[in-house]
């Protein structure tokens, strides 16, 4: 029997969804957050592309008007219109939208009150600005509301769902709980009325097991700290956790033995050996070059040691951890495709 959606689902251990293992087959709404600069838009894009390659019809949503999606896929700027940006051979499709709070308000008014035409007047009086930028929480309700609408939309009469999956490029870790927890946000100001009802429906959806919130991080101290904090905040708010996505990992270019050697500073024999090797392949092995190579390697070794410490901290979180390689050329040159394959292979989708 399916569990009621308005209560957190408990797993065998009696744990809430927040701690349950990530089950990609159930998830229909993927929320991607992370500290600024960790590449959450890239990860959201890769996730959506990966899903479309499984033959699914996917909607990728951005809510901060950054045009991150259009830049990532190198397509014209997106507006408040669902636009198909990829058609996969599997039959899957990737659609994208940059949600605009004002236009969401207009749609909302039209859909529920048939007063879409009142928008012009509302706008003239500054009420639209009030609702979309000033009134606390309303903006978020409108933005998440659009995601909610798209995720639950039916295609045609009696048809199935319009989208098999929706991927949300969400606000950064510092704001994501407040953003998703629209119910709490408007509870104080709109205690009754349609906004309140809408917020409650949204909250039911984002707390259900069909939603997963993934947190993107780098193996650096600040992003890892924010990730740990965000996971705790998400758990406290009863929001279902997905995976930790470690982004921009570099391939190990030196073996552990070599790293230990350069860190330990056993440089005398190393310097001579390296100089001889370089000379053998006709690289001018001046002291500057040899010492430079070793100095960079030492710094690299320090960095890796720090990354391992951070990796251990993440491992203690007990979540599925997905590892994505650093793309030397950024997302240009098909890099996003590499990441899409990686998220699928590692069980995120």
């Amino acid at each position, binding site marked *: 029997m399916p569990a009621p959606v308005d209560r957190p689902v408990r797993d065998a251990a009696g744990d809430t969804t927040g701690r349950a293992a990530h089950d990609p087959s159930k998830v229909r709404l993927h929320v991607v957050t992370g500290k600024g600069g960790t590449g959450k838009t890239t990860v959201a894009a890769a996730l959506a592309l990966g899903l479309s390659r499984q033959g699914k019809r996917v909607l990728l949503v951005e809510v901060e008007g950054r045009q991150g999606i259009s830049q990532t896929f190198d397509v014209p700027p997106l507006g408040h219109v669902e636009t198909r940006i990829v058609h996969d051979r599997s039959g899957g499709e990737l659609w994208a939208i940059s949600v605009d709070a004002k236009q969401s308000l207009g749609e909302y008014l039209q859909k529920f009150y048939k007063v879409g035409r009142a928008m012009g007047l509302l706008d*003239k*009086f*500054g009420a639209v600005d009030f609702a979309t930028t*000033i009134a606390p929480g309303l903006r978020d309700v409108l933005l998440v509301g659009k995601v909610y609408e798209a995720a639950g939309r039916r295609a045609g009469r009696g048809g199935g769902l319009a989208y098999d999956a929706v991927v949300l490029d969400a606000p950064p870790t510092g704001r994501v709980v407040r953003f998703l927890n629209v119910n709490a946000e408007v509870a104080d*100001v709109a205690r009754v009325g349609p906004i309140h009802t809408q917020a409650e429906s949204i909250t039911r959806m984002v707390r259900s097991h069909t939603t997963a919130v993934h947190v993107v991080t780098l193996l650096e101290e600040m992003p890892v700290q924010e990730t740990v904090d965000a996971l705790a905040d998400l758990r406290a708010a009863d929001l279902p956790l997905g995976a930790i996505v470690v982004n921009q990992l570099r391939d190990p270019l030196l073996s552990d033995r070599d790293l230990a050697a350069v860190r330990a500073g056993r440089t005398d024999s190393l310097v001579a050996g390296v100089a001889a090797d370089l000379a053998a392949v006709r*690289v001018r092995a001046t002291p500057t070059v040899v010492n430079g*190579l070793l100095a*960079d390697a030492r710094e690299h070794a320090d960095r890796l040691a720090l990354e391992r410490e951070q990796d251990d901290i993440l491992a203690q979180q007990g979540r599925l951890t997905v590892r994505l390689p650093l793309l*030397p050329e950024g997302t240009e040159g098909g890099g996003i495709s590499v990441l899409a394959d990686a998220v699928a292979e590692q069980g995120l989708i």
Partner: protein
Amino acid sequence: MAARRAAATPGLDLGALLADEQVRIVVCCGAGGVGKTTTAAALGLWAAEHGRKVVVLTIDPARRLAQSLGLTELDNTPRPVAGAGARGGSLDAMMLDMKRTFDEVVEQHAAPDKAAQILANPFYQAVSSSFAGTQEYMAMEKLGQLRAEADRTGRWDLVVVDTPPSRSALDFLDAPKRLGSFLDGRFIRLLTAPAKAGGRAGFKVFSVGVQVVTSTMSRLLGGQLLQDVQTFVAALDTMFGGFRERADQTYALLKAAETAFVVVATPERDALREASYFAGRLDEEGMPLAGLVVNRVQRVAAPSLSASRALAAAEQLADTGDGVTRATTEGLLRLHATLADTADRQQRQVARFTAGHPGIPLVEVPAAAQDIHDLEGLREVATALTAG
């Protein structure tokens, strides 16, 4: 590449900027995650150790960075940073408490009974803790307060401010204006006195409009919210003037010759694009941009060896080499090739920025192998920042 850029782009001499006593405010801004707070803290520390009396206003510092500045609690009060300051200089630091700053503004501008009424209003409580832009507005408000206190007490002669991790770096510039236009707006007047805003007899159409607006808002938000808003706005009415004046003053302060903006970025496409928007906007507003700080720049210690040469040598070594260090040397060459590639790519990104903004001074800060969480680490950053 670096040499070619130097011809068109002057170096940013932050040491001279911080030593200049005419400069009283330094604002660090840029996209999220580029190291704004670290940059602000390092600049403040350097100035304090070169005789300035500095207060650093941070918005949302990472925990260990905050600890390094002795900031253990978010209490909206500047406190001395132990172990910082030399040659008569001193360093104070504080974290912004957005809600408390807003409360203080209300208490300062409204009569005591009105103030109490506002502070207790549910709509005010929601606005002051979650209105998109409150943090930006309050950061600017706090900057104004610190600057005024500096004049009044002589406790500081330099205010260094970090800006909020906004959606866009421009948000904090727009926040005062947005709040101002909201307070002055027709909608507010409509809420406070629908009859007045509706106009006099003869403007029938207008009145109908008013009805549509109020009834739609009421249906959408519920009558209770609208009532709270009306009470809030009525109470706030008495302090509109003060708010407006304050926002205008802060804006004027940002345009003053004593202010210097430092735009912070990393050598990545997105961060530099934000920096580019910001530089353009400051120019439009007539606000003084000192220059661009590019954080986390990859450097190579053996620049004479090109990436492609290193890679070719590594492959040759893999095919033909022998000896105990062969694998290590091959690894070193591959590592060097990767780092040199990264460095080249970053320089191309920076070159793209400077091509679009010739003449904006620039300083690069090399990527540190370790994260920064003590004064020593900040000093190293400061040394790099002021090397330009």
